[in-house]
Structure formats: C-alpha cells, structure tokens
C-alpha cells in the first residue's frame, strides 16, 4: 500500500495487513514515525501538493522496489494535522532476506525526508514554525547516491 492519509493511521493494523499479504517473505521490517512532543509541540501540520506529492511517493516506492530484492513495500504518510504523539509515517518492507528489508525501509525514510514534496509546520499553541530537512537528513540521503556511484 502506497498512500497519503488525511486521517489518523494505525501502524499496528497496517503492519498486520501487510504481514498477511506478504506471502513468501522471510522477513518484514517496519518503521513508524511519531510526532515528537518535545519543545512544546502540540501538533504538526503537513502541507502537500495533491498530485506532485503522491507522484513522488510512487516514484520512491518504485525506486526501492527496483533497488532492493523485496516481496512488497508499504508507505503510508499522513498529511494535514497530526497531534503530538500520533503516527505521521509508516513504512514496511517484506523480503526473502532481512538485509534488503532493513535497507529498503532506511532508504524510503531518507527519501521521504529529503525528496518528497511534504512540508512540516510545528504548532506550539498559536505559534507556527516551518521545518526544513536537517543537514543530517541530507547526509543520510546522500549515502544512497554514494552507493550508486
């Protein structure tokens, strides 16, 4: 499942569905990202473009499926308002062997943070702060390009 979700997501339920559907896999790795409640953040608001963003997520999923020996891949990313402590992203990869599944999830998260048109705004009560990918996020994403080199 590759989707942008305007409503709350349930990583445990998504993983259960993904596991049931991933016939033939020898291992499944999943990652659930939550909105950190640090610094007084009460809510994230995720801006997106209704065509560019899903196209970019589909493209990154295709890249992951082409790059790693996967049985299946799931990416579900929230858009809109997400309360502190709530899940904002779910990524799962199923593969015959664990390394491909770990790497695919790591790769997908790096790409989601740096290459997909999504924009986070942290809300602290009435205050709003737009977030940009950190230097570390770009360094993490660049690791995959070096491996391509």
């Amino acid at each position: 499942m590759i989707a942008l979700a305007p409503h709350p997501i349930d990583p445990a339920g998504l993983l259960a569905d993904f596991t049931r559907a991933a016939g033939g896999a020898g291992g499944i790795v999943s990652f659930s990202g939550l909105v950190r409640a640090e610094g007084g953040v009460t809510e994230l608001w995720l801006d997106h473009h209704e065509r560019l963003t899903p196209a970019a997520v589909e493209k990154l999923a295709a890249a992951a499926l082409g790059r790693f020996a996967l049985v299946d891949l799931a990416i579900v990313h929230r858009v809109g308002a997400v309360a502190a402590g709530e899940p904002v992203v779910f990524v799962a990869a199923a593969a015959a062997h664990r390394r491909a599944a770990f790497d695919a999830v790591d790769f997908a998260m790096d790409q989601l943070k740096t290459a997909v048109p999504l924009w986070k705004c942290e809300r602290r009560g009435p205050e709003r702060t737009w977030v940009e990918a950190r230097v570390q996020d770009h360094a993490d994403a660049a690791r995959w390009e070096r491996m391509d080199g």
Partner: protein
Amino acid sequence: MKLRFFGRLRDAIGGELLIDVPPEVSDSEQLRAWLGQRHPALLDPSVKVALDDCILVAPQPIAGVREIAFLPPVSGG
C-alpha cells in the same frame, strides 16, 4: 495564471494567487524575479518551480501553462 505556494511560502504569500502576468515575463525565472520584487522569499534559489506538475531543473517558457507551483525545501518523514 494560477500560482500556488506551499510550506512556508503559503504563510508568507497565500496558498493561491490568480494573476495576469505582463507579456515581457515569458519564462519561469523571469516570473520568479518579477514576483520576487513583491515577495522576496521566492528569490531564494532553494525554492523550486513546477509548471503543470513538472518540477523544473532549468527555466522553461510559461506560455500556455495552467498552474505554477513554488516549492520551498521539503521536510517529510
């Protein structure tokens, strides 16, 4: 012509503007420079431009384009 702004640009400029572009503004970079006189945030080279859902890597003509989107650096995940 419909202009759309995302992320921090949405707060700075608004989500959407419908404007008449003067005839001397013929490509995406000229449009950026023209709009940037009023909205300097658009002049930041990290802001990408998309013409009808195609993110540009070089200036392109804007004649006949329906939607131009201005995309600041992203922050998903």
